[in-house]
């Protein structure tokens, strides 16, 4: 049965005006990646996000950015933020109790229902694991509904790998769940694979039958792994799912900039299958 991805759904309570929230916890993943748990001022969960959905998080006086909800709990949603620009740099100064603005959840979600009964191959690079994490933890929380889980994850060096504690100590304790981690540059204290993601992926001998590949990473990882999946491993385009990024301002399909062809990534995406992307003029992206 083909995987069906939902598009163009409206689930956010807030359109453009955020609600005031506070930082409930901060954890340092790497030297330039921090995870922030956000809750309302009265300590509640701001909203329920489906795996893969996004939200606009703002450091109120400086600006707002769109992030995938990387995980969530009873009374918080969590965002994993890499320090790469003006707003994210200021985000990294936030500490527990600081106020932030939050609006969402926006966009569609990974087809976690249709994926039931399938094996799942997660492929991520660097901060690209953050959006995958929401689906990965959902699958692990409903472990009996899904088949074998493989995570192929790479970073520039060991120090750039996020969620390393989960990868080493938590996720492999689930049944039939396998972690494959490589770095591009070996450093002291790393005795694992030193390999780019695409050849590493090809070396694992993963078969496409009965399996869905879920891919998220920067442009070069995306292109090379996509080529591996389609041409070397032999996945059909409909069984490869990805989550896209574009610059976003509104989050509700109106401000114009995140389009690929006639689709807006914020509203119609961010989750698409490769079969869908093949019908869109995405080549330049």
């Amino acid at each position, binding site marked *: 049965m083909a995987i069906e991805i939902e598009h163009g759904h409206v689930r956010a309570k807030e359109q453009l005006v955020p609600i005031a929230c506070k930082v409930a916890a901060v954890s340092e993943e790497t030297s330039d990646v921090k995870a922030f748990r956000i809750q309302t001022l009265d300590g509640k969960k701001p909203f329920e996000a489906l795996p893969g959905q996004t939200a606009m998080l703002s450091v109120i*006086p400086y*600006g707002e950015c769109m992030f995938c909800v990387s995980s969530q709990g009873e009374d918080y949603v969590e965002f994993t933020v890499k320090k790469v620009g003006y707003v994210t740099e200021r985000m990294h100064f936030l500490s527990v109790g600081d106020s932030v603005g939050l609006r969402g959840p926006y966009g569609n979600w990974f087809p976690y229902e249709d994926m039931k009964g399938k094996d799942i191959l997660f492929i991520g690079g660097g901060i690209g694991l953050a959006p995958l994490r929401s689906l990965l933890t959902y699958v692990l929380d409903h472990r009996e509904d899904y088949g074998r889980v493989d995570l192929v994850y790479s970073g520039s060096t060991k120090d750039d790998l996020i969620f390393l504690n989960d990868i080493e100590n938590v996720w492999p304790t689930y049944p039939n769940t396998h972690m494959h981690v490589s770095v591009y540059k070996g450093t002291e204290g790393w005795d694992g694979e030193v390999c780019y993601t695409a050849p590493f992926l090809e070396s694992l001998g993963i078969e496409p039958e009965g399996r869905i590949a879920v891919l998220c990473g920067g442009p070069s990882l995306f292109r090379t792994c996509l080529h591996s999946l389609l041409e070397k491993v032999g996945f059909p385009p409909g069984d490869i799912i990805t989550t896209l990024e574009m610059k976003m301002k509104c989050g509700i399909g109106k401000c114009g900039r995140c389009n690929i*062809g006639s689709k807006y990534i914020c509203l119609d995406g961010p989750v698409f299958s490769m079969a869908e992307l093949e019908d869109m003029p995405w080549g330049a992206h």
Partner: protein
Amino acid sequence: MLLAKDRLPQLLDHLAAQARVYVPARVGEDTRFALYSSGLEPDFEMVNTSLPPKDLLFPQAQSMYRYGFDDNGTPFIDPVHDSDNTVLFGVRPCDVQSIACMDDVFLTMGYEDEFYAPKREKLLIVALVCNNVAESCFCDSMGLDPNSAPYADIQLRQGSEGFEIVAQTEKGQAALSDWKSFLSDGTATRDNVSCTLKVDMTGIKDKLDEMYEHPIWDRISKKCLTCGTCTYVCPTCHCFDISQENRMKLGERFRSWDSCMFSNYTEMAGHHNPRAGKQPRVRQRFLHKLCFFEDRYGKTLCVGCGRCVEKCPVALDITVLIDQIGAADVAEGAEVLEGAAHGN
């Protein structure tokens, strides 16, 4: 019903007592829709104002909310909603159609824009069909008719006897019953006009569907300065930026017109930019007008008002582009892709 010409100032005064009334007028050296007050002379002879009326619904800068901390140190975020009863009087068929396009963007596809919707709700559109056309007008090539503005609440047709008035919506009917004392029975005699600038849109959308990769975009984008003038004078360009202004204890986040012609429009943190060069930006603008918007909303996003044709400093003329697309060989695009596959 007929509005005699000498009753027009009285009607406008009557309307101005209950709403903000905008009429086409000369303001300094420029022309635009100006706020009417008694004594202002509307100019119904000019064809198109140099600036479109879109800012009535979609202001150039619109405050969305104010934020800060109260005396107890608790953060607050207070939305700013402002809307007044507004009458857009004497607007041309092309600009009326542009409002239909903006309605699609701001009121459909799930989210009804909370800043646009109340302004739209309180707007009465009174169209004046064209008795003359400008050299740059080409609305009738874009599926419109200069003699008719079907999306308006009220339509005026100007003849020597005065303005023939027809209500076309419930809102328009309600307004006409209020205007009754200014109206008399009768019709206006006028001759239909048609645009002198013509383009052939036949098959253009279908060709563009196959022309995302095509050498035409390199050719036409060469002279573009990416100044953004086309997007600012365009009645249908609706893209916006969100930014903020901070003072000591109070800040304000607002949205403002943006332009797909600017490189930072799509530039992400880390400097990845899917439309870094002007070729993809020029392509985006024209494909959005002639292709993508139709895929999404079933309309062309160009209403043929001709403002960009007049104002572009390098004469990158959309009507010339349409002609060039009509003459282009779609197969040349395959050669571009082929070349890319071989690393050329």
